[in-house]
């Protein structure tokens, strides 16, 4: 392992060093131009992304496989809810058991053995492996050209929090409600999907400086 270059790990702006895992692992404020990174003698250019229709068809087949094998679709926000229930239960078991929102995650094998939590652990592994294979692993804070790193991170946290509240109210997010329920023609899923796109397009002009 040591002394061999880990092909595909590095993308841009090599920082040198002898450790192959960190050589070329650039810390930079990317503006998201994935294919426009300066080419480095030592580091291969990241491979371009897949065609969105091919990737989407692949994603649809993964979702279909979940329907057939597991009898359920994909999800993401449920994993966060399960993790939150686990944290509350660890801090105060009585409080968690008395909370009507968290209590449901405490049934069965408990919040840390929740199906969606394992699925999201898989998402982290799968995303990492795909980026590793394509040379797209890179420590960076991705942001628009007109925003600083601090503001970008504050927006990331604020936007994440708003999605957390919205996902609790709606009982799901883009994965579990929009994608999964969308394919099953759930009425609430299509309502959520249209509301989410509407909310995003309404707020987009207000936060334009963050991205354009």
């Amino acid at each position, binding site marked *: 392992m040591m002394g061999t270059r880990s092909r595909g790990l590095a993308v841009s702006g090599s920082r040198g060093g002898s450790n192959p895992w960190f050589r070329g*692992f650039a810390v930079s404020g990317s*503006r998201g131009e994935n294919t426009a990174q300066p080419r480095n003698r030592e580091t291969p250019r990241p491979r371009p992304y897949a065609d*969105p229709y091919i990737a989407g068809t*692949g994603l*649809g*087949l993964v*979702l*279909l496989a979940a329907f057939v094998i*597991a*009898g359920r679709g*994909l999800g*993401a926000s449920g994993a966060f809810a399960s993790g939150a229930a686990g*944290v*509350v239960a660890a801090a105060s078991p009585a409080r968690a058991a008395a909370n009507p929102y968290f209590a449901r995650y405490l049934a069965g094998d408990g919040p840390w053995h929740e199906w*969606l939590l*394992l*699925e*999201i652990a*898989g*998402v*982290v592994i*799968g*995303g990492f*492996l*795909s*980026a590793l294979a*394509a040379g797209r692993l890179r*420590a*960076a804070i*991705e*942001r628009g050209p007109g925003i600083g790193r601090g503001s970008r991170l504050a927006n*990331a946290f604020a*936007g*994440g929090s708003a*999605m*957390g*509240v*919205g996902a*609790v*109210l*709606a*009982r799901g*997010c*883009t*994965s*579990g*409600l929009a994608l999964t*329920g969308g394919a*099953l*023609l*759930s*009425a609430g899923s299509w*309502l*959520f999907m249209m*509301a*989410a796109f509407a*909310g995003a397009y*309404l*707020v*987009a002009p207000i936060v334009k400086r963050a991205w354009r």
Partner: protein
Amino acid sequence: MTDSLAVALVIGIAFGWTLERAGLGSAPKLAGQFYLTDFTVFKVMFSAIVTAMLGAFWLARLGVLDLSRVYMPETYLAPQLAGGLLFGAGFVIAGLCPGTSCVAAATGRGDGALVMLGMFCGVLVTGLAFAPLRRFYESTARGPLTLPDLLHVPYGVVVAAVVAMALTAFQFAGRLERRA
């Protein structure tokens, strides 16, 4: 680890892999959807919905898949409308959704990690403050309502209509992207 959780892990790996392949671990790319410059989010999402929808429809017709044993999300009109609007606002501010934030963080993007942290805090605080929200949360319940039920139209007709709408929207998306 039980079989069911092993399946969850494997399905998750495939899910994360396809999201990263499509470029959906990169916030500026996702944000492009909301400024009409990059329709990757829409294209990936709707080609996935069409694929899984057609697959579920035909596998059920051929008797391979029993749709009554696939979990159908329940409909709650007001909470899903309000939650959706708030979720969408958060999406464009964050540039990532909950699933894609995990991919972004896993591939080294610090902004992805902060979206995950924000998401976790949002869910935690809303869960802790659940008591006053509960009435709204449980309001306008419609059960596992589907579009064919709602519109009183056969399942196959809705499937065909969604395919037609998606194909039309893909044409428009391509045109808007070329103009951007």
